[in-house]
């Protein structure tokens, strides 16, 4: 078993959750992975200060697509204020696989576009530990 391409990663890559367009939506953001030019975007529908529903769209590698898919399941129902403060540790813990420096941006792109949509923050998520 490959330590990076574990079954759950490949499952989310081949059958991504919450992918497509969401109409109507209240928030959106799309960005490119500077490493490869892949584009990932998100549509978010908001109700009572929470993420009522969301969809990721675009294309990318197994790591970026699986990370967005896994994150989408956790983000549904989350308060916007909490989503705005999610850091890299949150995403990497959810992925549960060792991410090398060269693939870090692949893993964090999904969270980056969500934070951008929610708070306008255009920085890369930081690691706190």
């Amino acid at each position, binding site marked *: 078993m*490959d330590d*990076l*391409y574990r079954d759950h990663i*490949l499952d989310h890559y*081949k059958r991504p959750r919450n992918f497509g367009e969401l109409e109507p939506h209240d928030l959106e953001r799309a960005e490119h992975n500077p*490493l*490869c*030019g*892949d*584009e990932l975007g998100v549509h978010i529908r908001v109700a009572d200060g929470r993420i009522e529903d969301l969809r990721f769209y675009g*294309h*990318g*590698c*197994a*790591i970026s*697509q699986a990370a967005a898919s896994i994150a989408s399941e956790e983000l549904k129902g989350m308060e916007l204020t909490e989503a705005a403060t999610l850091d890299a540790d949150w995403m990497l813990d959810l992925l549960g696989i060792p991410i090398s420096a060269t*693939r870090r941006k*692949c893993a964090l792109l999904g969270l980056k576009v969500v934070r951008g949509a929610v708070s306008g923050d255009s920085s890369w998520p930081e690691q706190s530990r």
Partner: protein
Amino acid sequence: MPQAVSGLAPAGASLAVRQDFPILGRRLGGKPLIYLDSAATSQKPNAVIDAVADYMRHHNANVHRGVYPLAAESDAAYEGARTRIAAFTGSQAPQWTTVFTRNVTEAINLVAASWGRANIGPGDAVLITEMEHHANVVPWQMLCTERGAELRYLAIDEHGQLSLEALQDELDRGDVKLVSFTHVSNVLGTINPVADITQRIRTAGAISFVDGAQAVPHMPVDVATLGADFYGWTGHKAVGPTGIGVLHGRTDVMEAMQPFMTGGDMIASVDLFSATWNELPYKFEAGTPAIAEAVGLGAAVDYLSAVGMERVRDHERALTGYMLTRLAEIPGLTVVGPQDAGARSGLAAFTIDGMHPHDIAELAGRAGVCIRAGHHCAQPLMRRLGLAATARASVGIYTEAWEIDALIDALVAGRAVFED
């Protein structure tokens, strides 16, 4: 080290130079290093490593201003490298001027700024092609925006090749002042018919710039025969150091040009409010140059000459044919660019259905096989091809057929990971 070469491997599948490249003796994670990313940068032979170290150990002094013997040694090393490099590419003085730059990017920026600003204006056009590296796109975008000129693109056909008829149509419009194009595409592998293209450009009264980054390391290049007005290439892809590139230019064109960067070494005299320029090539070499790197590049062209560029091309063409044949064995794999190894240089960019190129490269890397994935700094071309990214394997002077076999094994194993 080399395993038994597959029965399919081409005859003469090695130039027997691997022992000259110390890094190729490394093992990573217990596996031999299989380096198939020479289009990004080449590995370095001992001859180059030793030349740089020897210069720093025994001959280091600044160039062009010292009168003591050590400075004379440094001058001789630096200018000797320039002379040998010019001879290597058939661009000898006095008809040709050879300027050291950092890389091709700087060579293109030099021509865009110095020749372009003085000669391109409203109503003029600059013509480039759909297969250019960003380095041969963005400087012309900047120039045309600044000067109110039009930037136009020569299209590629379905085989990833340029059409001479389409070029002629563009030139016949009468407004094209400069055409800049790559000798060899870093994605398609296409070898462009440079002499045929420059002949039409010259007849139309326009100036040509040829990006030789992917050509000089892999085949004989004679700038005078190719007929370009400017020809740029970079050292680090041609078994030389990073930080050193070359711009060959027609001396009569370069004489009329203003400097690119200004400062020390490029002046004849400086008054309080004005200056006059040094002669060629020094007019275009402001500040202390990359002396050790130039010496290293001199050693690199000596090394390549000793192996023989005709042999390098023959070897790489055979390897490329073998690589294309073996890649075709993998279901769902598509190679971009010309399918005929004779029409392309030693690289293959490809996609595999159901796998992102990053994942292809990651899994190959775990098997010790170094290949690249991404847009290869050619996003306009990738969009033209309808792709976001590709994986790319590229060979060099030291590549052997068993490494192609290892690539294929790694791709087959990687594909298995992604199969349902």
